[in-house]
């Protein structure tokens, strides 16, 4: 039996979930609904006003409105969410990623409302959420960390003392920080005092905890992370590593599994360390151990993400294990149905994050109406998305609108499949990053696997050239196409609904004849 289908809710399940509330939106809400439905569990969707027409609301069995639009008044609003849990009589809550997924306080609030939080215990979230505590724990269990201070820095003198051992460049980090904030690179001794003061100040104001520590700064490392899965009975496995080095401004663009950077022995070793790290934290559910890699021999523990991640899909493809299904099974109290030796690495997988941004215009975000969308299909291709033709992408949330995931028996075949998937992906109405992914996949260094987190910046010139205009000898046909598109645009009868000043405004019906009359009048200078 395939590992993918292995695992059911047993009749004697210690805690049988019947109705799962999803405290999230977008593609991950859709992904969780699908996993729940596979297990015969009812789902409750939450939606902000701007999300009322979103796909997860349509797919769920029940839905609860969260009044307002901004994340703070909706998906981050704990009292409102807890009320929704009570009103909908949900017996479990899946937080997805982002929003409140790593908030131990939210996990506690869910438990107090009598529902099961689908994720690790609040205690292990707290331990791994505090970077200094996490590093101490790793030291005890002999998991290598980046050289640096073990305790919060007392003052500048304390920092100077550590600077002698750590060397320059070094990085100051807020203990409670995350998401690229509360970090500062220091390149020489003269900047120490000023950087320390600034970092402490930021840590206090962003995260409410002024504790700061220092580490050796590794320039342009490889970002490799290991997926782990634990049940509540102390059994745990790893699902190999993911390479997430293709990033732009700390946002991942393309992820792959496994990593070309590691050989068999190193792969087994990094997996072993990840399992030790998760076990040390008393972890259960799906989680990720992030490593920072200077070279295959110098791999250091960086932090743990105590949630499902955007890129969990590539690990699913190469291990044949449905991670979200298993998160729910583990929350039901089930034991893992496999051991480490049952899990085999098969083939290669890539994920490309399709964002509503225009790479040719400095990644300018483009929320708006999707007039038409067509997803790629065929062997080895999977699309996780909440897009549909006619969907209006709200401006209040993340710009990720789809994940293209491909699997192939080898890395080269998987790359060719991803190029095919990108060429089949059609979208009318919004700009996307699809063409940027295509340029990355065509790059010889990417194909050779010799890249690090600085790749996009180092290859800036190459990417500029990738979005050049229509070649001279093709401009006649391009001009005809442009004119046809203009006529089609004026013909489009759709009503556009856009959110302006907090109220839903329906744009007037568009009419070719009215628009044309206006165009002509404007051209004559009449209006």
């Amino acid at each position, binding site marked *: 039996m395939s590992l993918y289908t292995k695992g059911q809710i047993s009749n004697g399940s210690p805690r049988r979930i019947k109705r799962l509330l999803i405290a999230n939106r977008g593609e991950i809400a859709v992904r969780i609904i699908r996993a729940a439905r596979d297990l015969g569990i009812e789902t409750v969707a939450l939606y902000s006003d701007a999300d009322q027409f979103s796909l997860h609301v349509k797919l769920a069995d029940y839905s609860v409105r969260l009044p307002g639009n901004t994340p703070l008044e909706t998906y981050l609003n704990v009292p409102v969410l807890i009320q929704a849990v009570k009103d909908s009589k949900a017996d479990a809550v899946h937080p997805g990623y982002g929003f409140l997924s790593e908030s131990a306080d939210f996990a506690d609030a869910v438990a107090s409302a009598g529902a099961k939080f689908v994720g690790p215990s609040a205690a292990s979230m707290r331990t791994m959420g505090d970077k200094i505590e996490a590093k101490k724990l790793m030291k005890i269990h002999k998991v290598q960390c980046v050289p640096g201070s073990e305790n919060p820095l007392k003052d500048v003198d304390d920092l100077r003392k550590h600077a002698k051992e750590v060397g320059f460049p070094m990085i100051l980090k807020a203990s409670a920080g995350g998401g690229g904030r509360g970090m500062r690179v220091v390149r020489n001794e003269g900047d120490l005092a000023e950087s320390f003061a600034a970092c402490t100040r930021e840590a206090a104001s962003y995260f409410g905890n002024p504790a700061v520590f220092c580490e050796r700064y590794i320039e342009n490392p490889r970002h490799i992370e290991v997926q782990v899965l634990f049940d509540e009975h102390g059994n745990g496995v790893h699902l190999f590593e993911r390479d997430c080095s293709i990033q732009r401004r700390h946002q991942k663009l393309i992820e792959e599994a496994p990593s070309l950077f590691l050989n068999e022995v190193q792969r087994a070793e990094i997996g072993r360390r990840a399992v030790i790290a998760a076990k040390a934290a008393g972890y259960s559910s799906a989680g990720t151990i992030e490593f920072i890699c200077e070279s295959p021999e110098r791999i250091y523990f960086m932090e743990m993400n105590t949630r499902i991640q955007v890129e969990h899909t590539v690990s699913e493809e190469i291990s044949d294990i449905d991670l979200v299904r298993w998160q729910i099974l583990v929350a039901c109290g089930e034991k893992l149905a496999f051991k480490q030796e049952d899990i085999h690495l098969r083939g290669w997988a890539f994920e490309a994050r399709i964002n509503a941004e225009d790479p*040719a*215009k*400095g*990644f*300018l*975000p*483009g*929320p*708006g109406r999707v007039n038409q969308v067509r997803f790629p299909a065929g062997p080895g291709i999977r699309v996780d998305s909440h897009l549909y033709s006619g969907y209006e992408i709200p*401006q*209040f*949330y993340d*710009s990720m609108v789809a994940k293209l995931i491909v699997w192939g028996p080898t890395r080269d075949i998987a790359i060719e499949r991803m190029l095919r998937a990108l*060429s089949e992906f*059609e*979208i*009318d*109405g*919004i*700009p996307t990053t*699809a*063409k940027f992914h*295509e340029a990355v996949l*065509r790059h010889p260094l990417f194909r050779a696997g010799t890249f690090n987190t600085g790749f996009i910046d180092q290859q800036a010139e190459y990417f500029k050239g990738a*979005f*050049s*205009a*229509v*070649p001279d*000898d*093709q*401009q*006649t*046909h*391009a*001009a*005809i*196409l*442009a*004119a*046809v*598109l*203009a*006529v*089609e*645009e*004026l*013909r489009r009868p759709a009503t556009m609904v*856009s959110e*302006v*000043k907090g109220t839903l405004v329906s744009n007037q019906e568009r009419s*070719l004849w009215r628009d*044309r009359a206006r*165009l*002509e009048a*404007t*051209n*004559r*200078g009449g*209006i």
Partner: protein
Amino acid sequence: MQWKVLIGGKDRIVDLPDLIPDNISFPATIDNHPVQLRWQRATRALFILDSKNLDSKASGPWASLNLRSKTVSKFAGESDLIISSEYMPAGAKFPVILDATVALHIPGQEAREGAKAKKPKVVRSQITGKVLKVMAKVGDTVNAGDALMIIEAMKMENRVLAMAQGVIESVKVSEGEMVSTGAELVRFKQAASDTQG
């Protein structure tokens, strides 16, 4: 209906029927060269029968252009349609990126417009979002590249930059306000064009 298409720094005149039929071939011209077109609306593919072989990449009599993505911007009060799109020409491995400005072509119109006084320059929002910070003040002289304001959309901050030197006549939005694409942000006294960075 005649359309003026600005592409690659050149104006091309395309003559099309007022309404384009779906999947039925129809005649058209580009710069007075006749072509036969067929537009498949459901799959967004344009077929061009081009006996004069105007385009070197066209293989065989019918060339197909498959649309991959398209966005069209039209700002209130302006007649131009700004089209950005990607398409796959038949036989190509990679898409072509098309940026063009399309306007209705009325012969003799440029001469009339040239005679008119220059309109005051206006900076418009290229995105829908929330005004986070306004740096531009009435009466300020700004240089090309100066940030006029910051607009937040999809959790990202986008700076609105001045493209040329000018004196600010008025600022139409305030901090915290929501703006939609095409909304007027800043008006200049003298010529200074807009864009977003």
